[in-house]
């Protein structure tokens, strides 16, 4: 067994362990943290496959941003574990059925020989000065320019829709306008001098 294979098996074991913990832990915060571990180890496996750009972006986007917001929500929610587990036995037969169906599907795809090693020879190790990021960028902005742009536009639409759904102006809440605050002048804007008759 080469050193590389050993490292792969170590990371694969951690990944499988973390993935199992995600679905078996009772506490949702623990599950989310194990999911973070799973992302991290799969990034390490991608590094082994010489895809350093994808690996680092996985850590950056999923671990650094998506999972943080996920944890945010899970921590703020007051989840009642008892009610969540209540339907476990009732739904178990259906769940087992779906699980078996999915396992059979996976075996039909992977085990049918169309993904075996004699169909796809192991790629040659790339030279040390090979730049994964640069080659990805080159192909993304030339050959796959239009699909890339279309994906970007779809994401933009999604952003606008999400903001549009959540934005509402409530008349009773007060807002500050920082640009107005900055433009305040010393005399007139700060105090109003009232003239009034002396009372006796």
């Amino acid at each position, binding site marked *: 067994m080469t050193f590389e294979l050993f490292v792969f098996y170590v990371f694969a074991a951690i990944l499988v362990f973390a993935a199992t913990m995600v679905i078996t832990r009772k506490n949702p915060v623990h599950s989310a943290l194990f999911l973070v571990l799973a992302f991290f180890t799969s990034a390490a496996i991608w590094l082994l496959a010489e895809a350093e750009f994808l690996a*680092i*972006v996985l850590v950056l986007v999923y671990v650094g941003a998506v999972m943080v917001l996920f*944890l945010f929500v899970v921590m703020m929610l007051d989840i009642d574990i008892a009610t969540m587990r209540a339907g476990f036995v009732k739904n178990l037969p259906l769940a087992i059925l779906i699980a078996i169906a999915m396992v059979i599907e996976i075996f039909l795809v992977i085990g049918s020989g169309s993904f075996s090693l004699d169909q796809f020879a192991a790629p040659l190790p790339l030279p040390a000065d090979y730049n994964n*990021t640069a080659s990805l960028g080159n192909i993304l902005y030339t050959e796959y320019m239009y699909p890339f742009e279309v994906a970007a536009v779809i994401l933009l639409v999604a952003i606008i829709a999400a903001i549009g759904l959540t934005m509402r102006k409530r008349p009773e809440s007060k807002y*500050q306008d920082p640009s107005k605050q900055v433009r305040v002048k010393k005399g007139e804007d700060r105090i109003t001098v009232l003239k009034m008759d002396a009372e006796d």
Partner: protein
Amino acid sequence: MDLLMSLWEWLGENLVVVQILIKIVIIVAPLMLCVAYFTYAERKIIGYMQVRIGPNRVGPKGWLQPIADAVKLMFKEIIIPSGANKTLFLIAPVLTLGPALAAWAVFPFGDGLVLSNINAGLLYLIALTSVGVYGVIISGWASNSKYAFLGAMRSAAQIVSYEIAMGFALVGVLVAAGSLNLGEIVRAQEGEGGLFNWFWLPLFPLFLIYFVSGVAETNRAPFDVAEGESEIVAGFHVEYSGMPFAVFFLGEYANMILISALTSLLFLGGWLSPFNGWPLLGPMFDWVPGIVWLFIKTAFVGFFFLWLRATFPRYRYDQIMRLGWKVFIPITIVWIMVVGLAVVFEMPWWFD
């Protein structure tokens, strides 16, 4: 000396892991010393800015103060609050310090003087600094305290928002240098103009945004709402005592040094001499080793962290968010386009 060199080469051939471990110790041990004396410098500098002397009792002129603090914290009891999640409570400080140290793996201290010379160095740095937020979130949740939780929420939201501006500022550097390798980025700033060839001039808005976002990212004043002592006691680490607290503290200061060092690397020419190629001063300072220049620049940027803390009042939370999302991100996007045009048309001085 020859014996040592041959031993070193033998290690490199037979026991690479041991050689790498020795290299890591050579980087981390001085870094920890820098962290300790950065806290001393902070107390002294802020002291003088507020017309007092600062620590002056332990050792000559108070030089042993950081050592005394470390010893004190080490001997204190580690209190784990009731109802806290013990494992996560103890893991959280390590998760803060870990990424702050791991980031130094790709940091070039001189021409070729780097632990791991990887292609995607800049990406690696962005990814690692984004992982640092977990220590804060986990500590806030595991403490089982509402103040800690509020501090963690504030801090996490702040770090995630400023990461975007920071990332965009780094994209500007990447476009200007044409490489993700940190050594290549420094070499791209080399030129006859000395300090006028560095990226701080053509990327001036990005330079400022990177530094200010770095201050926000490390939860330092004036962006320290995460620990706002008048509102939420001390934020996410309110329940920590003894060594776990010290590790949080180490992480914060290691992060500050990292941001200062990166600012000097990406915008202030790293190990390059500021007088490079100047008629009289250039040859006069040729003998100074690059790492000394890097140290001076890092200390200079680090001083700004302390200066900001001594002079600015704390930002209001909604204004922090406004600054990050509505001011910094649009400016960075516009400036990336400016830099892109400058690179395409090979603007003289920097990009020709």
